[in-house]
């Protein structure tokens, strides 16, 4: 899932400072699942902002709304009127949701209330960790199902580096060394010879380095 984290309230207060009628807009998909920008969090943020701005003597209106998916225009169309009635949409979706609103409603002013952090999973209660860098060329079959691009601090294709100790990465004792994980899994599967092969330099053109990416599926095109 896409994991996000709410921006500090002080920062959000600055984002809404020049606006009167604000729609706090949640998303019912990824950010709901990671407890960042669903209906419940919309309610909490809107109340916090009402209190904070009231204390500061500002008469602002904070309305609440949540759509199933902010990243698809058909869901945004259901709240077109509400969007037009507000002078700021404070989006609690990921960066894709924010941009979907902007593209569908060119006159709308939109600000992000969350930082889109990574593509990951909930490892424990209250702990999410990164799993995928969306590099566009999956190598997981060669690395025992552990992604070195997303999970090695240096995205090494031939790790582990000299900073791997006791299974941890040099950057943080809380971070597991991805290459230790790969090694352990390959060893357990009797496939260590896989690690002796030199993995060639990665083709980054499928990643962000190739420019903004697009995907065309002729079989799904209508015209």
């Amino acid at each position, binding site marked *: 899932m896409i994991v996000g984290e709410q921006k500090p309230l002080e920062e959000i207060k600055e984002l809404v400072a020049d606006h009167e009628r604000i729609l706090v807009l949640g998303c019912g998909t990824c950010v709901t699942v990671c407890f960042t920008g669903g209906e419940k969090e919309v309610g909490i943020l809107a109340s916090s902002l009402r209190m904070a701005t009231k204390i500061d003597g500002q008469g602002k209106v904070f309305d609440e709304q949540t759509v199933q998916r902010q990243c698809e225009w058909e869901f945004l169309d259901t709240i077109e009127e509400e969007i037009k009635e507000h002078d700021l949409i404070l989006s609690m979706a990921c960066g894709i949701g924010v941009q979907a609103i902007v593209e569908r409603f060119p006159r709308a002013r939109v600000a992000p209330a969350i930082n889109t952090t990574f593509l990951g999973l909930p490892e424990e209660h209250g702990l999410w960790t990164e799993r995928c860098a969306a590099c566009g060329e999956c190598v997981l079959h060669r690395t025992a199902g552990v992604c070195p691009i997303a999970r090695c601090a*240096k995205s*090494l294709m031939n790790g582990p*580096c000299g900073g791997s100790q006791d299974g941890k990465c*040099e950057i943080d004792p809380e971070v597991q060394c991805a290459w230790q994980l790969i*090694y352990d899994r390959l060893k357990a599967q009797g496939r260590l010879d896989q690690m002796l092969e*030199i993995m060639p*330099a990665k083709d980054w053109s499928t990643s962000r380095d190739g420019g903004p990416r697009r995907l065309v599926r002729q079989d799904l095109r209508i015209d």
Partner: protein
Amino acid sequence: MKSGSNLEKVLTEGHFAVTSEMGPPKGTSADFVRKTAEHLKHCCDAMNVTDNQTAIVRMSSLAACAILRQMGIDPVMQMVTRDRNRLAMQSDILGAVALGIRNLLCLTGDHQKFGNHPTAKNVHDIDSIQLEQMIKTMRDDGLFMSEDKISGDVPIFIGAAANPFADPFEFRVLRLAKKIKAGADFIQTQAVFDIPRFAKWMEMVRDQGLHEQVYILAGLIPMKSVGMARYMKKYVAGLMIPDELVERMAGTSDAKEEGVNIACELIEQIRDIPGVRGIHIMAVAWEEIVPGIVERAQLLPRPIV
């Protein structure tokens, strides 16, 4: 000869090699480079120049190596994959050859988190093993990574690092084999303090016959104080210092002298391990101590080849 560098000649002639290391200044002074190099010049066969070590910005390794060349020193240019992509690295390698640099040590580099620009973007377009492979292709096939032809020769003696003290330990020898396969001609190891572990690693290296495929130089860091010993033990990932050595540093009235004693003892013990072809002394910011250590270790004068 792959490169004709002094280091390559010393090693191929079978001498026990000594390399040392300098960190360029956090500034523009060529005199700093020259003065530091003067301390080391007569007691080593080649001199490493670090590349933004610990992710702290310093004068470029390439520029400092060029100054060493002017002094008649054989530099080992360190290159980390953290700060440059494949274009920049290949371009710097061409420039290095043009300036007379013949040894290159391929490294991944410490994470930028440890340096003075922790908010920087890192590159890691290719990793250190792929860098070795890239240089080997440039040298042996005259081709860029893109397979375009290079005009002129690329005589580089390819170096790689090995860390017998990092984990997983059993993989460290396999990783060395991988580096040899990628193109490494010589190896400089992480600093050795834990002799039994290093000896065990060397035994595994010999079992696979790897010591005959690559020149292994054992790393050595002279300790200046007990504080330094404790800091390295606690904070430097992939470095192992036995408690006994830390206690010796703590229990002396002359820590610098004890640091030198320990360094000399380590060299002696390292020399007894079959398959080790030299020593790499890393005394960054304490370069002036190196000549004394090399002399006491009876490794002077350095051979003229």
